[in-house]
């Protein structure tokens, strides 16, 4: 009897203590003392990301006397970790992520008028400023950019008797069929529509058929042009049979890119990290880069992406945040990092600095006119997730491209 009473008391005490702890400290960290800032950076690579940011932290601390607490998180986990921090009212001061509009919509971020030097804003490539602007205010400051282009294997092309890269979709299909005809496990076109970055693959084809995700403020996901594009992609898989096995279940890094790196794919949509991987690990693959083939006869469109370095509003951290951006956007900082990671600049001054790199020329020329996805709309964050998760099903044997896009359009409009 006495034992169980004592036992009950212990349980009660433990419970009360934890609940008490829960109650106190729940005001969390929405204010800081200005003596330190927390910076969360996504891990682009093992060798370069941490190296740059550790040095940056030292420089920053010397300049400002404010401690910079750095956390580098893998891209696979950063979404979950960020959510955990926000749920606990403990968001970082600076966050590196591939989306910003939802955070802006929740009123969590500083806009450029509060923390970004005016000269920097003027220097950032206008297309990126536009894409980082939500409801008239610039929140999504770009950290680096990348652009996509068509990579093709010159050995396979010459073996298949193809003289030049395709410029129209019909030529593209014909060329892919010729490469397939070579046999020996060769694939005409490596199409990655698996959950990793399917929206990027879809976007580049979509833009080159005169389509848009949004036009004039309205969603145009299921426009006639877009439906044609998705049907085209499905045909590549099901009718023309010029893609690798099961594009809906293929991601880039261990699927589409790896096939191209092994010299087994005629064409793939790639970007500068792929170039680096080819140079480092697969020097025997002979390839060239060309603009995307056009579906509607218009000029080739390039698709690009930036990630963001956004700042969370907290009492007392404005000055520290300002100093951060001032330092980061200095040419010797930002361009140093971008170069080491193998990406593209985000500033007009950076364009000039990178211009003498022959490998990047093909992208740099297109950067100012680059096509981006509508990242300035919080609804895009959800649309993107749906595309990533489900578009693979739409290009399979039993896929229905029109239905997929109609459902997507309905989803986007429903939440307006």
């Amino acid at each position, binding site marked *: 009897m006495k034992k*169980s009473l004592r036992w009950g008391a212990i349980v009660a005490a433990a419970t009360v203590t934890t609940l008490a702890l829960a109650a106190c400290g729940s005001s969390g960290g929405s204010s800081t003392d200005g003596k330190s800032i927390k910076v969360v950076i996504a891990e682009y*690579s093992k060798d370069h990301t941490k190296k740059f940011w550790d040095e940056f932290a030292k420089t920053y601390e010397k300049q400002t006397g404010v401690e910079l607490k750095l956390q580098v998180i893998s891209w696979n986990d950063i979404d979950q970790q960020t959510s955990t921090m926000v749920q606990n009212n403990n968001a970082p001061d600076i966050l590196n992520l591939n989306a910003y509009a939802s955070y802006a919509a929740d009123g969590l971020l500083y806009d450029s008028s509060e923390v970004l030097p005016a000269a920097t804003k003027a220097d950032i490539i206008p297309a990126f400023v536009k894409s980082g602007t939500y409801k008239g205010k610039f929140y999504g400051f770009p950290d680096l950019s990348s652009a996509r282009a068509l990579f093709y294997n010159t050995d396979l092309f010459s073996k298949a008797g193809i003289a030049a890269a395709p410029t129209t979709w019909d030529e593209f299909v014909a060329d892919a069929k010729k490469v397939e005809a070579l046999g020996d496990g060769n694939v005409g076109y490596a199409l990655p529509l698996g959950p990793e970055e399917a929206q990027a693959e879809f976007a580049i084809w979509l833009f080159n058929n005169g389509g848009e995700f949004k036009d004039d403020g309205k969603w145009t996901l299921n426009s006639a042009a877009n439906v044609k594009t998705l049907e085209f992609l499905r045909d590549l898989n099901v009718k023309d049979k010029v893609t690798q096995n099961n594009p809906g279940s293929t991601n880039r890094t261990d699927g589409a890119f790896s096939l191209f790196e092994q010299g087994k794919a005629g064409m793939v949509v790639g970007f500068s990290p792929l170039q680096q991987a080819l140079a480092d690990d697969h020097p025997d693959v002979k390839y060239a880069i060309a603009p995307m083939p056009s579906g509607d006869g218009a000029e080739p469109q390039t698709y690009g992406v930036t990630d963001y370095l956004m700042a969370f509003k907290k009492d007392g951290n404005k000055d520290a945040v300002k100093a951060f951006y001032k330092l980061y956007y200095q040419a010797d900082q930002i361009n140093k990092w971008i170069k080491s990671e193998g990406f593209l600049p985000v500033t007009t001054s950076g364009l000039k600095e990178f211009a003498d790199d022959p490998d990047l020329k093909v992208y740099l020329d297109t950067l100012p006119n680059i096509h981006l996805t509508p990242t300035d709309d919080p609804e895009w964050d959800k649309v993107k997730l749906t595309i990533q998760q489900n578009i693979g099903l739409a290009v399979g044997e039993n896929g229905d491209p029109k239905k997929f896009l109609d459902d997507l359009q309905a989803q986007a409009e429903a939440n307006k």
Partner: protein
Amino acid sequence: MSTLTARNSALLKGRRRTGWKAARRWVMPLGGLGVILFFLWPYLVMLFDALRPSGEVLATPPTFFPKTWTTDAFAQVVTDPAFHNWLRSSLVVAVAATIIVIVVAIPAAYFTARFSFRGRMVFLGLVVVTQMFAPTSLVVGLYREFYDLGLINTYAALILTDAAFNIAFALWILRGFFSAIPKDIEEAAALDGCSRVGTLFRVMLPLTLPGIVTAITFTFIAAWNEYVVALTLIQDDALKPLTVGISSYVTAYEQNWSQLFAASLIAIVPVVILFALIEKHLVGGLTAGAVK
């Protein structure tokens, strides 16, 4: 008549036993080889992937043996100071968590096995229920809790969490072992003048050694391989354990497959060493003969 048959059957059985005993000497080890191959073949693949250049890992078509043999991946991993940090972190956390679990679970298991008390079922049920929560569900709350306690980004947070999540198993298995020991042994020890604690240490524990070995193995491995809680609670690179650190070898933009596998293989070694040291105690307990 019956004794004759009995003797005959014993003789027959003896002969059969001799036949099997002879074959046994090589059949069993052969079977053992088969078992070894069955459990090790994927890790052989991993070994060969670690011994080939990173670009060859995703070769199409793949080859079992490397086309180009290279120990670069191992060299890079072993000389990487970040890797040393990860290894040290994992060791600290796993060893500490294991010690805590054993020290805490043994008395609790003994008490629950021997004494019926009000709420015993509730206690045991509570213990099992804690196992039912997926760690992914709990990370947000864990983060908050340790943040409030000022323990975020410390070994202590990780050690306590790993210990708490693994007590259930240790408790259950040890409880089973304690229950199986006949009461007369304890009574004999008590008659000999042993205190309760003394009985526990000198008499009961040796008999439950297989259970303790299993509990140690289980807890160490669970703490050694834990990922999502470590990812959430630890922010400094210097404190990251192996599981989190190793994941940085392959990112969306840069894939060092051979290094990933080399590091993973090295990470397996401490566990196997620990197990090799204690596995002989998996035999023991009541069969040790110390009972009588």
